[in-house]
């Protein structure tokens, strides 16, 4: 009898040796004369357990992890293929405490299916949302998205339905759907996991968006740093086209929709929506002044829906289950679920999808198990390189948009990076300015010059050169950048800097070692 064994093809799993484990499984099973069918899935998001091996046996899909290639022969000998007890045996992964406490809506299929098997996708609820959208028509589809309370998961948290409404109201003509897959924020990987683990959900979301606002063409702007996601997305688009979900007649509806994937070229700023549109048009990724909004005048001058990968992949969930069911999750103005990405110096990092409202502390300790180094967690940065640093005294803040905004922080794309007590917050503040200087598009002066001068001033403080006047200068520069930058890069780079200065004053005092 052939036993089906699952090993992830997610880049995070590969980075921890999943390919070697998979190859060893095939070789060792073959040497033992046992037939196994190796299937590759996305990651379940429990990265400290990768490479995770799941075996389909009488008791269900039994997981073992982390399984290195060296563990394979011993495991096979002990009865891996019949789900025998072993120190690495975890049982069914969906019954693991780290998993059962989650509410997986957008990520429901990730890790469960072969990302490129259309039948897997269909049997697990795929394209139900699209069928309903085609059934109820554009206006009702947009209404569902509005009523769901879904807000952009890329970071700006703008209500998705309102954006769609604006595009729908534009004069007749060419319209576009642009999927922002330029996931550049450090500490984030939910877009990557979705694209590698359930690419059809992104495609389905784009088709629904196209049908809802009358767009016949979609573009995915994918960062070049994600070669694995590129391979999976490209194959998924081809498969969807072959099966009639993309093309001149989507599912026999008479509507046309197709997707083109374009690669970025290593510019962080291209995650900003107008800069991304410039880049999609083949130009320097310099941001555009708004108004006009992309919804009015976006890609190639046409009305364009610009949404992030997670947002688009959530749309089929909203349509399939209805707006009311989605709204049930979350609190206040943060409705639904958020895939949080726990990263950096934590013992158990990974992806946690839950209704909005879990606190930073719960995330760090209940899920993360504290720091990886065993030292106290001193600071967390939330929302990527432009997000504020939170000290321990703020760890009881719930992870939702308004609660974070109230303490001068932001949720952004949902990345949470932990630092232990060896972190030098002056160095982190300096890095924030340096990063802004490297990635500034150069269009506006506050960002282009402010970031360079800010890095210089912070460097001077580190060297003990006129610390007081340099600190005052940094504050003044931050104020100018906050008020006068054209986009979020210069406009938010001050968040990590000012929060570090405010909450970790002791790191900005007089220094003697010159470091």
């Amino acid at each position, binding site marked *: 009898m052939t036993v089906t064994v699952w090993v992830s093809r997610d880049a995070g799993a590969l980075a921890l040796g999943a390919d070697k484990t998979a190859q060893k499984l095939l070789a060792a099973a073959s040497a033992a004369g046992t037939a196994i069918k190796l299937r590759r899935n996305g990651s379940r998001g429990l990265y400290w357990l990768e490479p995770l091996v799941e075996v389909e046996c009488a008791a269900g899909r039994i997981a073992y992890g982390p399984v290195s290639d060296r563990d394979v022969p011993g495991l096979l000998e002990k009865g891996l293929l019949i789900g025998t007890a072993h120190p690495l045996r975890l049982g069914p992964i969906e019954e693991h405490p780290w998993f059962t406490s989650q509410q997986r809506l957008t990520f429901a299929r990730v890790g469960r299916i072969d990302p490129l098997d259309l039948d897997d996708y269909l049997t697990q609820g795929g394209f139900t949302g699209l069928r309903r959208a085609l059934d109820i028509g554009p206006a009702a589809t947009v209404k569902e998205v509005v009523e769901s309370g879904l807000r952009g998961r890329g970071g700006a948290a703008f209500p998705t339905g309102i954006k769609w409404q604006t595009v729908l109201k534009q004069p007749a003509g060419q319209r576009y759907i642009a999927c922002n897959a330029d996931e550049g924020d*450090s500490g984030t990987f939910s877009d990557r996991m979705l694209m590698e683990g359930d690419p059809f959900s992104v495609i389905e979301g784009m088709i629904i968006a196209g049908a809802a606002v009358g767009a016949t063409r979609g573009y995915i702007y994918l960062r070049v740093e994600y070669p694995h996601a590129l391979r999976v997305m490209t194959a998924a688009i081809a498969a969807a086209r072959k099966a009639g979900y993309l093309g001149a007649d989507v599912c026999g509806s008479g509507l046309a929709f197709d997707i083109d994937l374009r690669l970025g070229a290593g*510019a962080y700023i291209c995650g900003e929506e107008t800069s991304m549109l410039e880049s999609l048009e083949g130009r320097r990724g310099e941001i555009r002044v708004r108004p006009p909004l992309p919804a009015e005048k976006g890609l190639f001058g046409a009305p364009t829906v610009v949404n992030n990968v997670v947002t688009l992949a959530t749309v089929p969930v909203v349509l399939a289950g209805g707006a009311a069911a989605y709204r049930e999750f979350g609190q206040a103005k943060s409705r639904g679920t958020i895939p949080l990405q726990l990263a950096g110096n934590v013992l158990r*990092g990974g992806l946690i999808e839950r209704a909005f409202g879990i606190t930073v502390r719960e995330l760090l300790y209940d899920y993360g198990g504290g720091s990886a180094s065993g030292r106290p967690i001193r600071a967390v940065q939330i929302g990527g390189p432009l997000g504020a640093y939170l000290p321990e005294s703020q760890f009881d803040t719930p992870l939702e948009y308004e609660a974070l905004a109230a303490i001068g922080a932001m949720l952004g794309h949902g990345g949470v990076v932990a630092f232990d007590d060896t972190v030098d917050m002056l160095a982190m503040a300096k890095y924030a300015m340096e990063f802004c200087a490297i990635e500034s598009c150069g269009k506006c002066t506050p960002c282009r010059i402010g970031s360079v001068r800010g890095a210089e001033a912070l460097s001077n403080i580190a060297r003990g050169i006129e610390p007081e006047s340099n600190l005052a200068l940094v504050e003044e520069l931050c104020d100018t950048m906050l008020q006068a930058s054209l986009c979020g890069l210069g406009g938010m780079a001050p968040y990590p800097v000012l929060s570090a200065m405010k909450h970790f004053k002791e790191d900005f005092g007089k220094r003697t070692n010159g470091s």
Partner: protein
Amino acid sequence: MKPGAIPTPMGQAQKEELLAIVARHRDQPGPLIEILHDVQRSLGCVPAEAVPLIAGALNLSRAEVHGVISFYHYFRSAPHGRRVLRLCRAEACQSMNGEALAKHAMQRLGVGFGETTADGAITLEAVYCLGLCACSPAAMIDEEVVGRMTPVRLDEMIARTNGKVTT
């Protein structure tokens, strides 16, 4: 230690290849970046000589084409080494001793970021996030991803790539 190999002049075959790439994309809207990706994939870089050819074929100015190439960190005007080692230097990797790893890599290879070893074996590049932040520090060697990178594993990787690297 040098910033990269000196580009050899483009031969006739390469020029023809380049024009074929341009022809393949020119009817799409906004094709320049797609063209640059294909050129770099095919020739290993976007040589300065390619700029007027691309500009002419797309009816753009040379300044416009150069402006796009120089805006994006990924495009390069000289070929990289036989392998490219990209080390993530963003926050999550910094929180797991990424900067010590970066220093070690520079010392071990005898080059700075953006530079290629003297024997042309390895180009060291900085990258700002590979999306592998739950297994920091992360690296990518060509397209092979590595999580929880350590100086020891880095040395092993370098040794596998080329035994003759500066020590």
